[in-house]
């Protein structure tokens, strides 16, 4: 006989679910046409090569099919998405210069406070454009560049941007990479010179306020040989009754012996289609660490990919997904080993409840050249009721006999014995289950800076808060 179970309420998103009116905003008409793409290009004063890239990407977008293996994206109609929305304000480098309404938005989300307390620099994007960007003086003095990508396109690093932009994720990679190439706007450029270790993290926060709009920011990070960086990405949006779209692109270059940690707490609203692409290439002895928390979105397709190109390079992916009512989160990771003695470790947890769908999807490929490489994949899934769904779809493709690959996966529900034990120690059933789920997510929270771990645990606690039924 099945044990009684806790009824779990949906997440309280009031913290994120506030919206500003679209007044004082420049908004291109909905849809995706060559005219719109050229208007964006004009708006951003693109160099010729970028305008060409946009037009080629648009052509590819019209040629490439939608993926047929993931969650349905039938509810997304690009003809009803505004691909470019900009507030009538210029980017500022101090919060006082940011318009009151936007500043108030980021104050509510805690961004300026976090900057003062625990960050080396912050970029804040509101709809299609950055509205604030700043980096601490002592970090800038070390030669670290943290700017909006449009400024970088015209400055000292213009050549570097041209060399790297959409080279890791080319527009022909998949349909949403092509879409991104056509209409990208905003995002950050980070350059960490050789040997420089940035002790405290940089953060970009993306807020999509406009109804029925898309956000297509591009993040390009270059961590030179022997350098070290932790970059944090946060995102949220108010909920509307029409589809919103996020198709960002993140390209990371990790030099020899360098380390980059890329952390994401994704909390988009439940009308969001999150079709994001992230990819890193790691040189000899370098290390990429992904920490990923997926809590929001209506539909997510998200599989950060690492290319372990250099010998002895490493990758670690730690992720958690929490899908509730109306959510279908298809997440995971990809890794390609081409260098010798490379190693990868993928460790994920997922929780499904209230009809939510979590899919863990991964791909590990070890090429013939990657002798001595090792890979380990571990995923655990919790089902909190029988109207939800949890799928695990891990693929492994091994092309050398000098490799060692392991995979473990488990699916189940909260153990009755564990709940009984905690209740015998005086906890209510609700608290016992919330504690178990927090412990289940511990692998991710312990990898985040304290402030972000607290935010993530708050999200889980809110999610688990409910009545016994």
């Amino acid at each position, binding site marked *: 006989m099945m044990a009684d179970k806790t009824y779990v309420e949906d997440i309280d998103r009031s913290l994120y679910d506030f919206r500003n009116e679209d007044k004082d905003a420049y908004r291109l008409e909905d849809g995706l046409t060559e005219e719109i793409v050229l208007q964006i290009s004009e708006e951003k004063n693109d160099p010729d090569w970028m305008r060409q890239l946009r037009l080629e990407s648009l052509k590819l977008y019209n040629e490439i099919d939608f993926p047929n293996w993931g969650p349905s994206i039938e509810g997304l109609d690009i003809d009803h998405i505004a691909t470019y929305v900009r507030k009538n304000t210029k980017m500022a480098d101090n919060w006082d210069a940011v318009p009151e309404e936007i500043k108030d938005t980021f104050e509510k989300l805690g961004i300026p406070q976090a900057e003062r307390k625990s960050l080396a620099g912050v970029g804040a994007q509101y709809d299609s454009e950055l509205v604030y960007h700043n980096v601490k003086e002592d970090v800038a003095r070390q030669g670290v560049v943290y700017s909006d990508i449009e400024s970088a396109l015209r400055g000292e690093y213009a050549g570097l941007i041209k060399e790297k932009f959409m080279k890791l994720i080319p527009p022909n990679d998949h349909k949403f990479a092509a879409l991104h190439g056509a209409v990208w706007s905003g995002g950050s450029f980070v350059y960490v010179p050789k040997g420089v270790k940035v002790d405290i993290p940089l953060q970009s926060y993306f807020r999509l306020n406009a109804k029925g709009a898309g956000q297509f920011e591009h993040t390009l990070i270059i961590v030179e040989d022997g350098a070290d960086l932790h970059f944090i990405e946060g995102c949220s949006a108010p909920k509307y009754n029409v589809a919103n779209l996020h198709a960002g692109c993140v390209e990371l270059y990790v030099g020899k012996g360098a380390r980059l940690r890329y952390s994401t707490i994704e909390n988009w609203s439940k009308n969001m289609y999150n079709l994001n692409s992230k990819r890193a290439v790691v040189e000899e002895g370098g290390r990429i660490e992904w920490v990923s928390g997926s809590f929001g979105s209506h539909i997510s397709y998200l599989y950060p990919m690492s290319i372990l190109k250099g010998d002895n390079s490493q990758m670690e992916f730690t992720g958690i997904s929490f899908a509730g009512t109306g959510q279908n989160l298809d997440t995971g990771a990809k890794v390609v080993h081409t260098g010798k003695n490379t190693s990868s470790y993928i460790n994920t947890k997922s929780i499904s409840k209230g009809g939510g769908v979590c899919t863990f999807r991964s*791909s590990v490929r070890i090429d013939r050249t990657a002798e001595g490489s090792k890979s380990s994949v571990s995923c655990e899934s919790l089902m*909190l009721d029988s109207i939800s769904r949890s799928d695990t779809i891990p693929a*492994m493709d091994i092309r050398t*006999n000098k490799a060692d690959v392991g995979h473990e996966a488990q699916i189940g*529900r909260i153990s009755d014995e564990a709940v009984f034990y905690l209740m015998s120690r005086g906890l209510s059933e609700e608290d016992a289950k919330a504690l178990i789920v927090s412990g289940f997510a511990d692998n991710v929270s312990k990898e985040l800076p304290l402030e972000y771990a607290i935010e993530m645990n708050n999200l889980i606690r809110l999610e688990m808060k409910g009545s016994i039924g």
Partner: protein
Amino acid sequence: MIRMNKLPAGTFNHLRLNETEVDYEPGRPEIIEISDNAELEFDKEGDKQILINVPDNRNITVSMAYDFEGTLNARTDINLGKGSGLKIIQANVSESSGRLINRVSGKVGDRAELEIIQMFPDSGIVYSDLTADLAGDGSSADISCAYFTGGDGILDMNYVVNHYGRMSNSRIHASGALADKAYKTFRGTIDFKTGSSGSKGDEREKVILLDEGVINRSIPLILCTEEDVEGAHGAAIGSLDEDIMFYLKSRGISPEEAKRLVIFGMFESLLMQAGNESLGSKVQKCLQKIRM
């Protein structure tokens, strides 16, 4: 063209794992009906359809030895009545590099037990597709496979167990070794459907990669729409354990012989589980011919 080995839930198209297309036009099959113990030998190419119907509360064993040249397209449809049991042993013991297209689908009734043992010792090209629907409460499926694929051999497998009944149990265990330019694909799915409360599923795969030119692809799935279940899968893929090799060498056993012993070990437990001496000796004969 036969389209088979389809994943119940597809994945990235570029991996080319979602299904397999086999260039073969099936003809009208010879139909073989079975409801009692049987030992079948397939020594000719062609199309076969084996219908196995096990009445309530009966237990039977059916062995199938494949020893043929050319292409053999064998389809086995199984229906297990309440409280019945069926053990199927399938072994491809062809000495020629024939092509086996082996498809099995079964429906398992209340408290019925389906046990399938498959052995593929160095046998050309094998496509193996197996689906078991655990329709009845307390039903079970126990699927074991051992293989060695060498030369230019292709082994393309797909095992799917659908849990519909309550308290149903499944186990999929596959282990094998790859040598030369072998190309092997393993798909395994345990699918807990809504209503299959109290069910358990376990899926394991162990692969030993003996030579540089081998390609191993594995995709073990768990799909779940039921809360009250326990599912697990695991895979271990790598070269021969150096400690085992060292131990065997220290006992005067050459590396080649050591590899052969490890391969024999993978089949040994299944041969014992099968308990069919004549089929077992044919498998042993195939294994002895393996060149390292």
